Structures are given as structure tokens and as C-alpha cells.
């Protein structure tokens, strides 16, 4: 190629290609933000698991997601401790409650997570600094998510009632917000007291197990499940239980399917708008291309020019879209909107956006094929 037709045309007639670049940028933005939201929202279904250490989760057989846990038999912990691969067992008590911040205000349903308040606790190890966790040693103290403060009408140091029992808010944490309501953290003792105020049951909901060798997680889970089948519990590796929770919310609930459906629509809209604008941009030069074709330049060579343009448009749009997404995700973070975007999903989105551009380029080439010389050449 002795004349860089594709690039020169892009630079000189950038106004003509700008709508296509913007279309790519916005479909990229939509895709990236949508993906981050899906991952964030449904990832938060597994927030308890992902924010905790430990290699295995032990729960009621068949439990689909953390908040659906049921009380385990009292001897469960014993069976766990019998396995030589187990290094530590930590109990987790999940209980529901009615929160009233002051007289006259309606109740808010809350979930209370009772955990061991020791500084090296496994549960919520990634969400709670040791100092904050220690505050739970104070009887009847709770920690709430920053984002739930106003909903609960709470302040740090303020008091409220759960199931009629007075508690004090001793701190706020971040990113504890999960799907399906307000989550509070409390010590196991506090959580037990709160539950006793409603009913009398001393059974735990989960146990989190730390192994001597984390690589053995799958094998130990299989071994424990043999005992569990007889004694009424089931073991999952941490990542398996996390996936289980996410896929339950994503695929088994109406909200999850709704969001997935919306993502698919976003994708289709992106493809259609991008290809239409790119085709319009190419169609602007169609009589010039037809002249080249008349002069004997093959359709294959012309297609290469158009695809090169599509690739540049895609790259430019992707860059703009990525910048826009970064801004949008930053804004979301600041407002405690659950978003999460890893390298791999981000790359997948980028590949998809480039594919949309190139696909549109291919579609635009069809304009060339059909608009044949004789009609255009005037």
C-alpha cells in the first residue's frame, strides 16, 4: 500500500467517523458498566464468603446461598474437629431481626451476622480491621455498613433496638452490603442474645474451617461430606460456595435474569447502532470506492481498507469507552453502588467491542458489493 488511504481518510474526515467512534465508545461504556454492575451486584451475594478467610464452608445440606442457611446440628463442630486436616473451626450465626432506632419509627428487617470477635478471626477478615473487630467484644454492640446508616437512622455511638433488645452502633464498615437487605455484624454472643429474644435456639448456621493445607480443600470437603451425609451438614470449598451463591442469585431469581436480559439487549443495541453509523461513514465514500473498483482495484483490497478503518474506529471508541467507564465506576464506588470489574471480564468486553466494530466493517463492505459501479459512477 503506497498511499495510506484508510488512515488519511480517518484523519481528514474525522467528523464523518466521529459518530461511529462515539457509538463504539458508548456501547463499550454500556457493556463495561453493565458487566461491572452484574459482577458487583451478584458478587455481593457472596460478599460474606469473599470477604472472609477460611478454606471450607460448612452449612445445612443443599444450601444455595448464604442468607438461606439453616441451623446446623449441635455436634457438627465435633465432626469437623475430628478431621486431622482441619486447623481451625469458626462458627457463624446468622439471624434475622427487627431494627428500631427510636420510638415512633417503623421497624427495618435486618440480618445479624454473629462472628468471633478475636482479632485474627476468619470471618470478614478482609472487611474488618482488627481494631474495629475488637469493638464487638463490648456486649450488645453492632457494626453496620456505611451505606445503611441513613436507612437505619443510625449514628456511630448511637443506640437502637433489635428484637426489643438495646444495641449500640460501635463502628461502620464498607462493602458489606449484600443482596436482600441490611446486614449487621455482631459478636457471636450478641447475635445469640438477639436471637434468644425471638426464639430459643443455640445452634449455629455455618462453620468456617481453616485447613493446614488449603490445596487440600476439595479432598477434605469430599471427606467431610461423607460424615455430613449422616450427621446433617454439607461442606463446600470457599470458591465453590461463593460461585453457588452468585449463580443462585443470577440465574434462580427474577432480578438476576432481568439484569442478564438487559445486558443482552445492551449488547444488541450496541451492535446495531455501531454498525449503522460505521456503515453510514463508509457509505460516504462509496462512489470513490466504486471508482477504484472500476479501475480494477479488487473488492478484497477495498474490504481491507474498510476493515482497517473499522479497526481504528473500534480502537478509538474503546479508548474513550474505557475512560468513560473508569469515571463511571469511580463515581459508583464513591456512592457505594456495588460494582466490580476484573481484568478478565474487562478484556472480554474489550474483545467484544472490537468484534462489534469489525463485524460492522464487514457489514459496511456489503454496501460496496451491492452498490456496483454502473449505478454509482456518474
Amino acid at each position, binding site marked *: *500500500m*503506497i*498511499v495510506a*488511504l484508510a488512515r*488519511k*481518510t480517518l*484523519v*481528514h*474526515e474525522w467528523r464523518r467517523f466521529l459518530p461511529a467512534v462515539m457509538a463504539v465508545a458508548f456501547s463499550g461504556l454500556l457493556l463495561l458498566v453493565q458487566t461491572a454492575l452484574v459482577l458487583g451486584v451478584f458478587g455481593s451475594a457472596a460478599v460474606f464468603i469473599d470477604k472472609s478467610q477460611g478454606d471450607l464452608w460448612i452449612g445445612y445440606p443443599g444450601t444455595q446461598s448464604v442468607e438461606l442457611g439453616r441451623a446446623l446440628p449441635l455436634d457438627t463442630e465435633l465432626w469437623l474437629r475430628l478431621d486431622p486436616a482441619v486447623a481451625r473451626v469458626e462458627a457463624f450465626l446468622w439471624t434475622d431481626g427487627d431494627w428500631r432506632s427510636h420510638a415512633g419509627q417503623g421497624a427495618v428487617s435486618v440480618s445479624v451476622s454473629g462472628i468471633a470477635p478475636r482479632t485474627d478471626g476468619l470471618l470478614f477478615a478482609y472487611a474488618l480491621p482488627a481494631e474495629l473487630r475488637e469493638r464487638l467484644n463490648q456486649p450488645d454492640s453492632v457494626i453496620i455498613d456505611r451505606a445503611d446508616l441513613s436507612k437505619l437512622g443510625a449514628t456511630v455511638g448511637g443506640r437502637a433496638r433489635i428484637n426489643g433488645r438495646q444495641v449500640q452502633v460501635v463502628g461502620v464498615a464498607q462493602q458489606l452490603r449484600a443482596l436482600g437487605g441490611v446486614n449487621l455484624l455482631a459478636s457471636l454472643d450478641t447475635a445469640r442474645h438477639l436471637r434468644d429474644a425471638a426464639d430459643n435456639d443455640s445452634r449455629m448456621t455455618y462453620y468456617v474451617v481453616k485447613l493446614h493445607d488449603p490445596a487440600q480443600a476439595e479432598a477434605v470437603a469430599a471427606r467431610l461430606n461423607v460424615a455430613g451425609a449422616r450427621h446433617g451438614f454439607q461442606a463446600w470449598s470457599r470458591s465453590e460456595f461463593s460461585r453457588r451463591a452468585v449463580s443462585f442469585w443470577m440465574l434462580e431469581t427474577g432480578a438476576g435474569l432481568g439484569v442478564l436480559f438487559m445486558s443482552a439487549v445492551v449488547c444488541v443495541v450496541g451492535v446495531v447502532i455501531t454498525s449503522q453509523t460505521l456503515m453510514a461513514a463508509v457509505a460516504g*465514500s462509496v*462512489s*470513490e470506492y*466504486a*471508482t*477504484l*473498483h*472500476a*479501475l*480494477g*482495484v*479488487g*473488492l478484497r*483490497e477495498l474490504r481491507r481498507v474498510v476493515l482497517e478503518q473499522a479497526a481504528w474506529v473500534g480502537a478509538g471508541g474503546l479508548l474513550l469507552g474505557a475512560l468513560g467507564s473508569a469515571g463511571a465506576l469511580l463515581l459508583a464506588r464513591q456512592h457505594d453502588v456495588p460494582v466490580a470489574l476484573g481484568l478478565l471480564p474487562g478484556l472480554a468486553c474489550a474483545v467484544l467491542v472490537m468484534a462489534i466494530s469489525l463485524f460492522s466493517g464487514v457489514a459496511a463492505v456489503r454496501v460496496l458489493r451491492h452498490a*456496483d*459501479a*454502473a449505478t454509482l*459512477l*456518474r
Partner: protein
Amino acid sequence: MTASPLARPPAAVAIRATALEKSYRTGRVDTVVLRGLSLEIGLGELTLVSGPSGCGKSTLLSLLGGLQHPDAGQVQALGVSLWSLADKDLERFRLEHTGFVFQGFNLFGALTALEQVMLPLGYLGLDRATARVRAQEALAEVDMTERAHLRPSALSGGEKQRVAIARALAKQPQLLFADEPTSALDAANGHRVIEILHRIARHHGCAVLCVSHDPRLFDQSDRILQMEDGRILTDRRQPEYKESAA
């Protein structure tokens, strides 16, 4: 060149078309554009096809130029039966042997005059330096050397058409087709363009087929074919045309 008041003898045949038929279908109506048309186009002369609009002259050009398939009939160009070639070979034939000039110039807005002319040469397989020299020669031939660095937006209509002619000429084709090349131009520029086309036929020995309803071009052509209703009505040769400033 010896000037003779007599008509030039028929030139060596560049294109021979036999029994060309073409019709278009719009909705349920078939419109017949060419009805069994046969003709020969000679090398080294400018042949003008004239006639009212809709008489089929542009269709004839695109059939002879290998742009459009006839419904029936044959086109032999430079001894090759065009419509027996595969699409790719036909593209190659056009690349190597034909040039086109159109009413609308069809220049790329982003390229300078020099780049417009160099562009098709790249596809012929020429290297950059050779292509540049050839493009410069072609631009010199249409008197555009001084304006070679300009983009179409900075050129007048006549200048654009001269660049388009240079683009067709630089490939050194034996067949040059021009479809209404002067329609968008004023008298002076139109005159200049047809003169250039005529000179190309003479100096390069190529067959120039020009389609136009512009009567101003008649006395500058070697041969005039008058078309109507898909047929050739008259075929007359002009007394030899004298180049104004050869």
C-alpha cells in the same frame, strides 16, 4: 503528423462488441436498454457516443468497460473475451488495461492530487518511487504539476477532472472510458478536458470512448456514434481534428 483533409482511415480495433443486449427490471416492468447492438472501437482515436438521456449510452460504456454484464452478446477487448473472465480476472484486466473518468470526479477528499494518482498504481504492484514518477508524469500531462500537492477541496471542477484523468492515465491503459466528463464543467474547462482526452488517444495510441450529450464535443472527436433507443443510428467520422496547441 501529416495533416490530411480527408477522414482518417479506420484504426486498429481495440474493442469489438457483438449483439449486445441489456434490460433492467424495475418492479414488474422490463426496460430494454440495448437491443442487439454491435460496434467496433479503434485504437488511437477518440470515439464519442452521443444521444438523448436514457438512450443506453452509459450502459454501453459500462458493458464495454467490463463493469456490467450484458444479458446477451460478446465483448472482445484487446483480443480478450471480457465476459468469459472470472470476476477476479476481470478486475485484473481492468487494472492493467482500462481507465475510467466520470462526471462526478470521485476523488478521495483526504488525498492530495499526487496521492489520488498514485493510489491505483500501488495496486498494480509498482513501488513507491516508480509510482511517484509515473503520477508526476501523468499530472504534468494534464498540466496539474503546480497543484499536485492540493486536496480536492482546494481544486476547481476542471482541475478535479484533470486529476481524475491523470489517475486513469497513470496506469497507462490501452482503453480509456469517459462518462459525461464535461457535464459538470463550464465551456472553457470542458473544452480543455476533451482536448486532453483527444491528445491521450493520439499520443498514447489508446482507444478513448467518451459518452456525452454535450454537442460542444462533436467537432473535437474523431468519430461520432449517435444512439437512440438502444441502437446506433449514425456512425460518422470527422475530418481530422487539429490539436490547438500541440
